[in-house]
């Protein structure tokens, strides 16, 4: 049970993004054309509810099941890596119409060709790892 709970969380994630059509190339296309509130509604409501949850965690000094206080690590203060890296990610997100979560979800629903997408994404991460010291952050 200790580890299997993560599989259950994943199942909930997969069901949610599939049933809300967030895994669809056409929904991402629609989002980048600002032609429907749907995807923005998903993202904004997740952030709104998430922000309340995070404030609750911080103000009550909530402890995790590990027994220690939950800490949410602060991100880097510099902006370069986020804008440049984010731009590259955005190109791929719009082109492929999927981000990492939906890739796993559609792979499971039977689109086995996405194994090639997974290997390409691993290659991309690997190349980033090789070039890391030479890139502006």
């Amino acid at each position: 049970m200790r580890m299997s709970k993560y599989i259950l969380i994943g199942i909930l994630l997969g069901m949610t993004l599939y049933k809300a059509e967030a895994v669809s190339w056409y929904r991402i296309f629609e989002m980048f054309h600002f032609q429907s509130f749907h995807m923005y509604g998903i993202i904004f409501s997740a952030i709104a509810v998430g922000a309340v949850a995070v404030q609750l965690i911080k103000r009550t000094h909530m402890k995790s099941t590990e027994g220690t206080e939950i800490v949410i690590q602060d991100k880097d203060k510099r902006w370069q890596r986020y804008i440049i890296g984010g731009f590259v990610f955005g190109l791929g997100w719009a082109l492929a119409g999927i981000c990492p979560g939906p890739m796993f979800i559609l792979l499971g629903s039977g689109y086995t060709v996405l194994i090639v997408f997974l290997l390409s994404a691993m290659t991309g991460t690997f190349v980033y790892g090789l070039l890391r010291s030479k890139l502006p952050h």
Partner: protein
Amino acid sequence: MVPEWLFQLKDFISQPWPWWVAGPMIALIMFILLFFGKEFGISSNFRVMCAADGAGDMADFFKYDWKSQGWNLLVALGAMFGGYLASHYFASPDGAVAHVSGATIESLKQLGFNFQEGQVPLVPEFYSWEALFSWRGLLVIVVGGFLVGFGSRYAGGCTSGHAISGMSALQLGSMYAVIGFFMGGLFMTYVLFPLIFN
């Protein structure tokens, strides 16, 4: 005998989920993970998979305690199961359709996708092994995958890690990342799509 209400529940779940169900559900998932002392972020799995394949011998970026990240691989594995269940047992009554707006159907027509209202598939036909033999399919799957893998690690996260986890924690860096996501996405959509499709 299976009680009637179970069938009703199945039908209820099988409807397309509105955004106001999906968004809070994603927040709940993030909260549960935080409660277990973990941070929600799917793209980290690419780094774990590289490290597990021995990439640590070639770049220090992959020399880290990746074995402690096994839980995240299980979330990804669960997401695959979730996709299987949703598509095989909880399919929408009108099939695997993306209920996009009329304006979107018009925009798709301009790029040469001719769909009738209510007939836009959930998954495009270029997610297939055959499509890999066309330059367009190769571009979408292979180049798209590379950009997602490279960009998410460069930016330190993807949609789940930055747009959801980071923005919920009011992180300025995550806001920059989301701005970057949209700059890249809009550039692809408005500048490159007319060259790729058509």
